């Protein structure tokens, strides 16, 4: 399943790249894309575990860029 989320207060392009790398490392995530300019996150992950994976993603992003929030 592929889903797209908005990102607010994503101010640092370098952090966006780091977030993308970290999200890709999460187990069950097939692909992820953090678009700094469109302020969007696209996640492709296993259907069955999607909600759990999203929780994990939020946690990882909080760690890298605490100011940025994912609009779930």
């Amino acid at each position, binding site marked *: 399943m592929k889903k797209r989320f908005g990102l607010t207060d994503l101010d640092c*392009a*370098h952090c966006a790249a780091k977030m993308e790398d970290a999200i890709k490392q999460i187990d069950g995530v097939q692909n992820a894309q953090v*678009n*700094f*300019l469109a302020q969007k996150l696209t996640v492709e992950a296993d259907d069955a575990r999607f909600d759990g994976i999203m929780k994990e993603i939020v946690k990882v992003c909080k*760690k890298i860029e*605490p*100011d940025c929030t994912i609009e779930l």
Partner: protein
Amino acid sequence: MTKKQKKMLWRIIAAAALFVAAKLLEPQFTDVARTLVYLIPYAVIGWDVLWRAVRNIAHGQVFDENFLMALATVGAFATGECPEAVVVMLFYQVGELFQSYAVGKSRRSIAALMDIRPDYANIEVDGKLEEVDPEDVPVGGTIIVKAGERIPIDGQIIEGSSALDTAALTGESVPRDVAAGDAVISGCVNLTGLLRVRPTRAFGESTVAKILDLVENASEKKAKAENFITRFARWYTPAVVIAAVALTAIPALLLALLPAASLPGFLAGTAWTDWLHRALIFLVISCPCALVISVPLSFFGGIGGASKRGILVKGASYLEALAETETVVFDKTGTLTRGTFRVTAVHPTEGVSADDLVEYAALAENYSGHPISLSLREAYGKAVDTSRVTNVAEIAGHGVRAKVDGKTVCAGNGKLMDREGAPWHPCELPGTTVHITVDGFYAGHIVISDEIKEDAAEAIRALKAAGVRRTVMLTGDSSAVAADVAAQLKLDDYRAELLPGDKVDAVERLLSETSPSGRLAFVGDGINDAPVLTRADIGIAMGGLGSDAAIEAADIVLMDDKPSKIATAMRISRKTLRIVKQNIVFALGVKALVLLLGAFGMANMWEAVFADVGVAFIAILNATRALHVEKL
């Protein structure tokens, strides 16, 4: 400005005022009090940076710009350079504010370009108009589009006539006249009359939704330059930080261990704090933000600007490849020529009437959507009674065979006649010749000609001027027609009488003939040439409005039918790449220069801050130029 940015602006003003006050009061204070006086503006401007630095270290994020800035300024305080520490932090925040403002502004201007999403659709409920979400309108219902409104969903006009402004989709400023029966595309603005439209697609399948999706996803196909920057950024910061550590540690060690007399030249007369100061300069320059923001922003701007001109680019990588186009291969029909065929001559064999010949041809070709079949049906002029036609078999690259009124009718080119063993002869007129046999008897032929598009010759000239070395036309048509068109347009080469499969082979061969750094672009109308579009380095589909196949298979979609847009796209691509290169060279150049000067003790903190945020700001401003492509 957002709320967050406004707050920051006030903090900057307050901190600047406090800094000036501190500067004025400074002579009255001694060491500790002096530091304290400068700590006040420093705290006002830098508390959040310090806080984030601490928090991020706790999260294991070491080489983060907050941490580096905190380290550099705290270090400056420690070495007694209090005013510098405050100013560095102040400038850093000013730069960040500028950056966030500039990025926000270009984000908005790109979003404005994409402002073609219709907010609502009008439907009629009990004689009254009601506004509903376009997604809720079923296919086959009826929507009403008033003058001044945007058509929300692709459909067909059932009542009314009007002029449509297609500028948002095609960049074309001349309105298009439409009337009942015409297909309309979402995203166009209805200028004059009231239209009743029957949606032929759901909103999600409509042109507008597709275009928005495509442009938003365009940044996923990253250009080489972007990948280079991402890789570079990963190594740059740690490398600079390690260099900074070495820059303090090695001299400090040597200064401590060696007697003053035997010190190497570069260390003579320096204290370890000088080296620490130089290292702090390194830390200030160590963020790669200028590049990380400005390169994708340039591509985003280029793609946005191109879409304003009716050119949809599916990814930054294609925009990048387009600049290196060496060979452009065109499909003839619908690309260089109008594709609106007309029957220009009917030559029946003796004993057959012209009307009968046209009738057989129109009936046999009845199921095909090919432009030639359409022109035959137009010449026939009557509604086709489909019950008279059975067993239709399309023979790719040859023609059709069908049973009409129980007789076997073959209609197609010379190759089909050879296959059928009919005694055919070529026609002396230029154009496409359709030969017809009835039950094996050669009944004659019909000549259909196509017109060359007005801007086709200009398009070829512009491509040549833009540096394209070779232009080639592929066509299934006869050599005579191909040679005629190629000569009129001054094309370098042509391949004629190709079957659809041959086109892929022809492109393969042309690909092997292009130089390793050159790219091959194929331009087609998206009908029947999906495999070729995919095979070419860059697949360009024309007249993409409403054609799903084209949008799917191509890398670049030209929304209108003008081949001259290819050269425009190339110019946009060149401009974008020029900006990207300028930014990379400028940002890396300034950073390298300041690092070098810093290592030799010839740069100060001010220059370092400029090399960081100043460069980022200038690079962003430069990147926003990519948006402006109106005159290209």
